[in-house]
């Protein structure tokens, strides 16, 4: 048992899988020296320069090279320093990586991981370094999407992503990098597509992902004091989606609040809300509610950030509005 930060959980998963499988190779900007967020510290010393490759600032080349190497039998992991930068290589991600297996009739397999820092968290990174973009990928069949909430989750889910034979985007919330948790010894692995029941409750289901899972937990603790028993689910992965876990929980509680950090105008929460409305309508005792980031490009000044960021307080308010039903 060792206490790991979220950032060292990334490192632990990478090291675990590089140790286990010599086909696992890394590429990205400044990763040999540890990377901007120090998630790859020491890997080049441990595994050598043939396993850890520094690249120019060339996201299309980074992501495309990962795809080509995956087709050739390696299991590459490309670091995208800030997930906002997916926008400069999005063609590679959605037109090539997501589709080539399908459009070749299954001739190629693409066991690759794209990973890096994601998320807002009111850190002052603003519009071009502060977005939560898991929902971008959710529109595109052919991509798996993982966004862990804790260090334990990070080690196990990243390991699973690396072992997966399909392309997986792993999002690491940068506001969580410093969070700590005891991680047990030995090999870590959490299957993709299984939501985590964080906390049982009877009156309302709170569904979170990444940083919003902790917000849901804190909201649930506050709601306890008001006599409201909240169940908290961590989706862990948007694709594959454990829809049954959500439906079963709503079947018990009859109320659903989905909490997502990205702007709500077309967030992943809309997909969750829609499937619950379609498939669990008879279980619902109140309207499905979403708590999302504001529908603006992200600001920087703290007071402005606070205005649009999600928070446990917003979750509590949403639940209290539902409780009237």
């Amino acid at each position: 048992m060792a206490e790991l930060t979220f950032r060292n959980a990334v490192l632990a998963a990478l090291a675990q899988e590089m140790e286990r499988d010599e086909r696992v190779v890394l590429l990205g900007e400044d990763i040999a020296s540890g990377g901007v967020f120090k998630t790859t510290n020491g890997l080049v010393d441990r595994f050598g320069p043939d396993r850890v490759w520094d690249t120019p600032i060339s996201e299309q080349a980074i992501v495309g090279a990962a795809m080509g190497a995956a087709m050739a039998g390696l299991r590459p992991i490309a670091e995208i320093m800030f997930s906002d930068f997916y926008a400069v290589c999005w063609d590679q991600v959605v037109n090539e990586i997501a589709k080539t297996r399908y459009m070749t009739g299954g001739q190629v397999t693409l066991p690759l991981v794209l990973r890096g820092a994601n998320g807002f968290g009111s850190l002052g990174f603003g519009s071009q370094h502060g977005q939560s973009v898991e929902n971008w990928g959710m529109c595109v069949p052919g991509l798996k999407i993982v966004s862990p909430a804790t260090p334990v989750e990070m080690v196990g889910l990243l390991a699973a992503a690396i072992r997966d034979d399909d392309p997986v985007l792993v999002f690491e919330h940068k506001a969580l990098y410093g969070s700590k948790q005891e991680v047990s010894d030995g090999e870590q692995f959490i299957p993709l597509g299984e939501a985590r029941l964080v906390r049982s409750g009877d009156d309302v289901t709170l569904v979170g992902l990444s940083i919003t899972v902790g917000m849901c937990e804190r909201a649930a603790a506050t709601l306890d004091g008001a006599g409201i028993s909240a169940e908290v689910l961590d989706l862990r992965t948007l694709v594959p989606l454990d829809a049954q876990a959500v439906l079963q929980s709503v079947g018990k509680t009859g109320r659903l609040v989905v909490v997502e950090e990205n702007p709500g105008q077309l967030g992943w929460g809309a997909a969750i809300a829609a499937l619950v409305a379609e498939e669990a309508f008879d279980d619902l005792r109140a309207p499905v509610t979403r708590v999302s980031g504001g529908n603006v490009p992200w600001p920087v000044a703290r007071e402005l950030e606070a205005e649009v960021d999600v928070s446990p307080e917003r979750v509590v308010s949403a639940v209290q509005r539902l409780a009237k039903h």
Partner: protein
Amino acid sequence: MTQATTSDSRPDLGVDTALYEQMLFIRRFLEKVDVLYRQGQVHGPAHLGLGQEAIAVGAASVLRPDDYSIGTYRGHAHALARGAPAEAVLAELLGREGGICAGKGGSMHITSVEHGYYGSYAIVGAHLPIAVGLAWASRIKKTEQVTVCFFGDGAVNIGAFHEAVNLAALWSLPIVFVCENNQYMEYSPISSMIPVDRPAASRASAYGLEALVVDGNDIDAVRDMTGAAVVRARRGEGPSLIEADTYRLKGHSAADAGAYRPAEEVERWRPLEPLLRKRAALLAAGNDEQDLIRLEAKVAIAVSGMADRVLAAPKPDPSTVWTDVWADGGSRWRN
């Protein structure tokens, strides 16, 4: 190359004639696709490489079976030249069962991994970084496999080209970039879209590479140039960027008559096309014209018969649309 054309006798014809036969087969194949397109048999666009056959065939002829090649939506010739089964390629174009991409790729995404052809990509320039990845894997695995990446002149103006060539040069990867300069970026002369003389060769020095230009309609010159580049790559001497001059005999796609091309330009290029030239060279080298005529008749009959068979083949089972998204064979995204 294909089962349809390699089976019977050409005992007295050498490798030159075999390459001529390959080019000829591809020419007849593409012409047949053009006709079928006009008959409404091809669902979706078809971009034909008529007149550009020498580059695909010449480059493929210097590769090992385990080498990688990769190309564009104008990629039929490149797949066939590596040995992709022509009947399966045609079935893909005509939307029949047995299509080489199971009906999910169509004309723009012909792929035959079994033959080392890692795909045809329809986003201009997008496959150059992927090609770099194939070559990067060869370097990591120390396999001496070489990657040849074909792309059009229009691709040099998109960012992916520069990122990919830069990274390949920086990492000294075993890759040969082959720019097929067919003079047109879709409907626009490439000369009107570049501020330099040549789309690829003029950019080579930016990546520390030699400016290499070859007559892409001369298959022997293509073989010499690409062969030397492949040898360098295999020895670990890094990438090459070759610009092969050629000319698209028809429009950008089968739907385009290419009427924007000046008549005198079309006429100037017509005698320079690779089949006429290779045929003349074979005759000059002493081959019997009757042998060539027999060969030409055989190829025409093979293509025609193949088209009849494919047209008679069943359509794909609609339920197969739900396969091949994930490595487990399915397409399920939620439970």
